[in-house]
């Protein structure tokens, strides 16, 4: 006879979802006196198949018991082993001794009763009031038809307060109210179902007030799962595949996949009717993805049809072996199957083709909506919708007109697509009337210039939009909402995020051909790569298998040979229009590196909002700690943190003495992350005190930039900047690069990125290397015989060592020698630039110039709202003239050849994972 300690029992309870326990007595007890599971801990097992009327599991006979609160201790004599009380929240609980009618059922009972689903079995329990979500009128648009445990029959609209466990672990919630759809639980794996009601259930968790349903999977399944989780010998390659009904299989040693053919027991109107279920094949699940009107639903049932918003799709619960406890993951059937990125870099200009492959996994037509990122400098100039062999080039139109065309086409049943921009780096793809099983590809082409720093070029492709925080009153919010929120967000766009435990089949492939024109000496990447060299100058890299999860930016850095980067001038003249375009790469003169810098006033502004929780905040802290080590005695510094509000190390910057640095270290150690991202409070704190005439003020922002009010931030910086310079550090796997770049641009500084894999010290060392030499200030350009107009950026930044600046504009006249002048170390410095000549190879210049002009106008729009109308008109005209995406233009494509069958497709939002390192719980709106 085995014995277990109460400590072990309590740990088991805690693993099953209990929030807080206070152990008052610890003793060894006989297994017969303590039941097998948390459910059984509340009541003894009744006779099989009967509603028992059991005696209490443990007795408190023998005297008055007092709880021990946190921090107290008490010696417990061995003779009091049977006096055990478990408490929560400092309130004495002896409800374990209360009497409740309890039934547990096992697989044999279910078989004898002819019950084939967990949900149906729970509905038969005497404590439970059957709760099934109907289609209309609920707030759970994704979940009509779900079956919820409701052990005391309370209103389940805001959560039934009935906790559902699988093998004593919390099952995944499936709707906004925190309910668990019991249809998710593979029936054939259910060995036993144990309910807990009465006061004991409250000790499991706050949401277990009404009771607990614990589904214990059968032992055979447990054994199979353990086998699947064991390491797979390299000599014995496993066979990926899916298990059959009620069984498990090993998927390449990476996951245990449990297939189940007994799903889809319910229909959305709450009745068990024959029609929809007759359409469900083994291995498929009935999915309801919208809220049809009641009459439509009833009509559909009468017509033996599924009805609008009701669809059939495959469902694959998977268990990943690296989890501490087996957890069922749902692979959500969503329409975006794959993203293919094919890029070619010539010189420092990238041409990138992105293909999004949509496919309808449901049994009815859909409209797919996908929010995705592109680089903030991308000049999106081509848009093609591919249906089979037919390729339809989209037309660039004004945003409202394009939206109207798309809506009309969708309403009439035509396949159509619409690409709109919500931020310079956030786009929305809509694809209408995708028929069941059919595919539509969307091809997007854009151009961009690569960033260059300290000998390295950087190609970046973002794969996911980070969840943004929207301060109250944000005029154009970008919401971050859970996947199950299928309702439109009328006040702004929204990105849907997969809840923890959910996954999709969407993966990404990236291939980049690098041809910088000189030898490539070194390559570094955020992802594992396959490389294929064509010669010393040209290499093709692609993502390795297994590195295809789109949850962090793809970054490809490459270092080119020797001293080949120098200031130069490229020009292009459009033969048709006669317009000339130029771009200058301004590189700081080499002599600057020999000069010492002047004293600095460094202000570190640290984002401590919820999205920075965990690894991102730790990275940012490490970077600041490294920076503190690099300060010199004449420097001063300040540390400011912000989330919902801001606070700082001291009322004003302090001298960089060892004592103050120690104080700063302790201050940093004590900082945690929680709350919103009220960055404006941080900006005001950082730029709102008088300038120090002795020191050059550098304000460094360390943030993921996950905010939705970028325009307000940029406006605030522009108004308060003064003589300061801003250096922004993008922290995390997928920072908001648009905001960070523009902050640094307006702040005449530079941007750097600190991924979760980077060394904070190395990144900060590179930063100090840059600012440890005097920058070339007050830069002026003498264009010689060129008459230039529309030059961007209009406000020239300082030139820091290792960091060139690209200037682009239009010109007339003869392109010749250009001279760069500035001030460095108190002296006048002049450099003459080489002219590489006019070349048709530089035909990308008009597009790049137009993209920069639009970016500059967008900045002006942020800081000059009174001129919004004229600026918007100028952006729109520039975008149309150069066929570029913008905030005021969209690409639309309609296949007007065929009207698809049936009603307008149901809208399905493509949910995405939160970026690597970001905690869903602290970043996504609830």
């Amino acid at each position, binding site marked *: 006879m085995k014995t277990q300690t109460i400590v072990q029992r309590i740990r088991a309870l805690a693993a099953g979802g209990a929030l807080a326990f206070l152990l008052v007595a610890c003793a060894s007890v006989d297994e017969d006196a303590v039941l097998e599971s948390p459910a059984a801990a509340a009541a003894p097992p009744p006779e099989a198949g009967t509603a028992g009327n059991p005696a209490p599991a443990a007795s408190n006979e023998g005297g008055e018991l007092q709880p021990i609160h946190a921090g107290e201790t008490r010696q417990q004599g061995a003779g009091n082993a049977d006096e055990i009380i478990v408490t929560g929240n400092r309130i004495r609980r002896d409800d374990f001794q209360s009497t409740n009618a309890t039934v547990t059922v096992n697989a044999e009972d279910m078989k004898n009763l002819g019950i084939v689903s967990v949900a149906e079995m729970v509905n038969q329990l005497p404590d439970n009031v059957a709760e099934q979500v109907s289609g209309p009128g609920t707030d759970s648009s994704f979940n009509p038809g779900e079956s919820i445990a409701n052990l005391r029959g309370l209103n389940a609209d805001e959560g039934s307060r009935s906790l559902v466990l699988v093998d004593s672990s919390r099952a995944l919630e499936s709707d906004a109210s925190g309910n668990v759809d019991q249809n998710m639980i593979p029936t054939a794996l259910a060995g036993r179902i144990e309910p807990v009601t009465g006061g004991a259930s409250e000790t499991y968790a706050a949401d277990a007030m009404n009771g607990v349903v614990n589904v214990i999977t059968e032992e055979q399944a447990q054994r199979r799962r353990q086998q699947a989780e064991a390491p797979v010998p390299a000599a014995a390659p496993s066979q990926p595949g899916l298990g059959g009904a009620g069984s498990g299989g090993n998927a390449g040693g990476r996951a245990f996949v449990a297939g189940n053919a007994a799903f889809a027991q319910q229909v959305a109107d709450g009745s068990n009717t024959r029609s929809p279920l007759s359409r469900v094949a083994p291995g498929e699940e009935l999915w309801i993805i919208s809220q049809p009107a009641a009459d439509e639903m009833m009509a559909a049932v009468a017509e033996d049809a599924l009805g609008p918003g009701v669809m059939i799709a495959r469902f694959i619960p998977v268990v990943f072996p690296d989890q501490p406890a087996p957890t069922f993951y749902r692979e959500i059937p969503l329409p975006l199957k794959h993203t293919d990125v094919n890029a070619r870099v*010539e010189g420092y200009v990238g*041409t990138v083709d992105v293909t999004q492959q949509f496919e309808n996994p449901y049994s009815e037509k859909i409209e797919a909506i996908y929010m995705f990122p592109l680089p903030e400098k991308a000049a999106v100039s081509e848009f*093609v*919708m591919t249906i089979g*062999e*037919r*390729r*339809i*080039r*989209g*037309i*660039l*139109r004004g945003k409202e*007109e394009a939206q109207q*065309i798309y809506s*009309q*086409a969708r309403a*009439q*049943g*035509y396949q*159509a697509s619409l690409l709109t921009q919500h931020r310079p780096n956030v786009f929305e793809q809509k694809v209408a009337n995708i028929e069941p099983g059919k595919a539509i590809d969307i091809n997007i082409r854009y151009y961009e210039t690569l960033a260059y720093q300290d000998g390295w070029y950087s190609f970046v492709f973002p794969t996911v939009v980070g969840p943004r925080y929207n301060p109250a009153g944000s005029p154009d919010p970008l919401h971050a909402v859970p996947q199950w929120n299928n309702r439109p967000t009328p006040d702004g766009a929204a990105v849907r995020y997969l809840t923890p435990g959910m996954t999709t089949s969407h993966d990404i492939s990236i291939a980049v051909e690098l*041809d910088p*024109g000189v030898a490539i000496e070194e390559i570094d990447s955020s992802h594992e790569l396959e490389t294929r060299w064509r010669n010393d*100058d040209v290499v093709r890299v692609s993502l390795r298998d297994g590195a295809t999860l789109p949850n962090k930016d793809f970054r490809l850095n490459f270092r080119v040979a020797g001293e080949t980067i120098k200031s130069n001038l490229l020009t292009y003249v*459009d*033969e*048709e229009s006669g317009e000339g375009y130029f771009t200058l790469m301004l590189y700081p003169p080499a002599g600057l590196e020999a000069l010492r810098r002047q004293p600095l006033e460094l202000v570190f502004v640290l984002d401590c909002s919820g999205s920075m929780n965990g690894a991102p905040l730790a990275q940012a802290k490490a970077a600041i700690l490294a920076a503190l080590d690099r300060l010199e005695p004449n420097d001063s510094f300040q540390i400011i943190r912000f989330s919902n509000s801001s606070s700082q190390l001291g009322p004003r910057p302090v001298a960089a003495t060892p004592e103050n640095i120690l104080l700063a270290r302790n201050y940093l150690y004590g900082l945690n992350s929680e709350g919103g991202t009220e960055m404006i409070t941080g900006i005001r704190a950082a730029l709102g005190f008088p300038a120090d005439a002795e020191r050059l003020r550098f304000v460094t922002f360390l943030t993921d930039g996950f905010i939705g009010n970028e325009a307000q931030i940029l406006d605030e910086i522009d108004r308060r900047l003064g003589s300061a310079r801003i250096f922004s550090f993008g922290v995390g796997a997928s920072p908001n690069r648009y905001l960070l770049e523009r902050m640094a641009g307006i702040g005449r500084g530079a941007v750097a990125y600190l991924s979760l894999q980077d060394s904070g010290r190395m990144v900060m060392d590179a930063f100090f290397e840059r600012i440890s030499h005097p920058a070339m200030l007050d830069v002026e350009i003498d264009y010689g015989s060129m008459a230039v107009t529309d030059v961007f950026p209009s406000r020239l930044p300082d030139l820091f060592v290792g960091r060139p600046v690209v200037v682009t504009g239009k010109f007339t006249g003869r392109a010749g020698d250009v001279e760069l002048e500035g001030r460095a170390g108190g002296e006048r410095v002049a450099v003459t630039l080489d002219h590489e000549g006019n070349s*048709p*190879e530089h*035909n*990308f210049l008009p597009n790049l110039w137009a993209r920069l002009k639009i970016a500059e106008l967008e900045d002006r729009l942020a800081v000059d709202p009174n001129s919004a109308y004229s600026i918007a008109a100028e952006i729109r*005209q520039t975008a*149309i*003239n150069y*066929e570029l995406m913008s905030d005021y233009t969209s690409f*639309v*494509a*309609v*296949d*007007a*050849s*065929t*009207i*698809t*069958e049936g009603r307008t497709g149901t809208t399905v939002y493509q949910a995405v994972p939160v970026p690597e390192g970001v905690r869903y719980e602290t970043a996504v709106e609830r």
Partner: protein
Amino acid sequence: MRHTRIAALFGVVALGLALAGMRFALAQPGLAAESAARFTSSDVRFATIDVYVDSPEPLAAWQFELREATGSMAVVGVENGESAAFAGTPHYDLDAVAQGRAERIIVADYSLGERATLPVGRTRVATVHVRLMGAQAPEFQLQLIAAGNAAGEAIDAAAVIELQEGRAE
């Protein structure tokens, strides 16, 4: 090295110059075809306009302008032609829209394929997808601006359009 880059860039350059270049590289078109079609209309509907070029010799490049005189047309897509030589998506120039005139679109494409792969005779070079609005019957006009062979010489070709409103599957 430089030659390699130039060769690699050629495709991109050629695409960028397709619209502009053909206007200068090709001689005056031998035949400018105009076609018009009338049909009854409802408020908003969608239709396709298949553009056919009938060429006596292998067709390597073409350019046409489609316009609608009443202002009821909006172009909503340009589709590739039926020949494998023009499997890519044609390029368009929509300046007229930005300038506020009645909707018109200039569409062009070219092929660098072998002569044997180029279409001869009547071939659908593109399909223009349009939205039609208003009660007034639209009046389409098609002008074949240029048609050329692989040597860049003008071809004495003709062009016609066929209009089809969207059909149910």
